[in-house]
């Protein structure tokens, strides 16, 4: 085995499994997240709920702010760049970010092309709402996938829809006969070898997390039972009444997602959850960005 960055980058995602990745906007929040048991933090200037509220164009965060968070914690630090904005990604690589999220939460910089992620040494995670999107991103070099969900809403319905869609399509590909896989690749508009991988292994070629709208321990457990290998929590923590307690409860819920008794205890007395927005009330569907 030589120094294959793609393999090493997939390996880092494997180490994050069973964990919770939390959005943070300051070094103080990053420290709270780390001591509550986050396996990584996502450094960004504004959490999705505020991006949604503020409107306008949303861009990569100030590198100085990201560095402040890198210095505050010992766990991996991720940051977002706009879809297709390879110069922002180059900047994030230059400050040695541990993972880049090419994210639909920010305003897309390119409405046709995603970043050619094979040109980078640092790993990328990308959002997907079905198997076709997931495998196209992997084909472009993403070494980790997450559901898009609908960020900043506190409404888990879209993450559920995306996870169910991916799992159903994975099951379908698994049940095809081998001579049907060529057509499946054409239908999904993805490379054949990735379809073959899904057929043989009954899973994505990379780690798959849930993201978008997770706000409670029960939400996290729901996503894990639906097949997520870990969870991103964005606005759900620092938009809630008691971030420390809620963060720690979600971390424990991801470990013991099948134990309803423990989930009941974890769900007690968490204070107020973030105020959610239902999907019918949303003006901007971020999940529709970047297919």
């Amino acid at each position, binding site marked *: *085995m*030589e120094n294959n960055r793609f393999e*090493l980058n997939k390996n880092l995602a494997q*180490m994050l*499994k069973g964990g919770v990745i939390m959005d943070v906007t300051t070094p103080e929040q990053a420290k709270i997240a780390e001591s509550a*048991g986050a396996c990584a933090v996502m450094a960004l200037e504004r959490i999705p709920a505020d991006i949604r509220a503020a409107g306008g164009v949303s861009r990569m965060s100030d590198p100085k702010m990201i560095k402040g968070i890198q210095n505050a914690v010992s766990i*991996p630090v991720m940051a977002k760049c706009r879809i297709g904005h390879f110069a922002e990604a180059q900047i994030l*690589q230059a400050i040695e970010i541990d993972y880049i999220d090419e994210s639909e939460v920010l305003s897309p910089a390119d409405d046709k092309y995603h970043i050619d992620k094979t040109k980078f040494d640092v*790993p990328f995670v990308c959002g997907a709402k079905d198997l076709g999107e997931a495998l196209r991103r992997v084909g472009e070099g993403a070494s980790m996938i997450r559901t898009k969900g609908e960020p900043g809403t506190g409404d888990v319905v879209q993450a559920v829809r995306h996870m169910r869609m991916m799992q159903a399509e994975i099951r379908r590909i698994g049940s095809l006969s081998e001579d049907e896989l060529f057509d499946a690749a054409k239908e999904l508009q993805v490379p054949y070898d990735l379809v073959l991988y899904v057929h043989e292994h009954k899973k994505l070629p990379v780690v798959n997390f849930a993201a978008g709208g997770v706000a409670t321990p029960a939400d996290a457990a729901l996503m894990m039972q639906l097949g997520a290998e870990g969870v991103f929590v964005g606005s759900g923590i620092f938009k809630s009444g008691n971030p420390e307690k809620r963060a720690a409860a979600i971390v*424990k819920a991801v470990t013991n997602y099948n134990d309803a008794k423990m989930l009941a205890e974890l769900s007690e007395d968490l204070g107020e959850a973030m105020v959610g927005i239902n999907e019918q009330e949303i003006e901007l569907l971020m999940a529709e960005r970047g297919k």
Partner: protein
Amino acid sequence: MNIGILAVQGAFIEQEQMLSGLGASCFEIRQKSDLSRPMDGLVIPGGESTVQGKLLRDLGLFAPLKEKIEAGLPVFGTCAGLLLLAKKIVNDERRHFATMDITAVRNAYGRQLGSFYAKAEFDGLGIIPMTFIRAPYIESVGENVQVLSVVGGHIVAARQSSRLVTAFHPELCGDTRVHRYFLNMIETLKEAKRSEV
């Protein structure tokens, strides 16, 4: 052989697959009730040591597992597992089981850009492939610790009686020799105990 795999966070499924493939019967440890099962060996997988350390305590697993390790339960820690077993960590104030006389450096090769592959000799097993992911290394070892492998001048695997640690991830390389080494180690320790009695 019954191997308990700490499954609070990290790459525990890879360890299970590796050890099951070698004929061991594995079970996951996620909460206290899982500790009532018979256990011949314990694996602490890769992941984040801060997360595993916190969950071990929050879920009431820390004290009973520490007791078992101190009483001689064979244990194999990779990467985060190495940090959980180290008595000293140079650049981290947190201590966990602290049952092995090694001084570790956390994230010793830097951030993800510093992650790498290597091949090196491992205590008579020959040259084995090694994956290092934001890995630690061992800066120094106590008297009773046997150094098993060195990469680039740094100790990356060591053993102290019933405790085995690697800074790299043998569970990611598809090479079963290090896991077999652990299972053999358990057998040998059992034999030794039997002959004592």
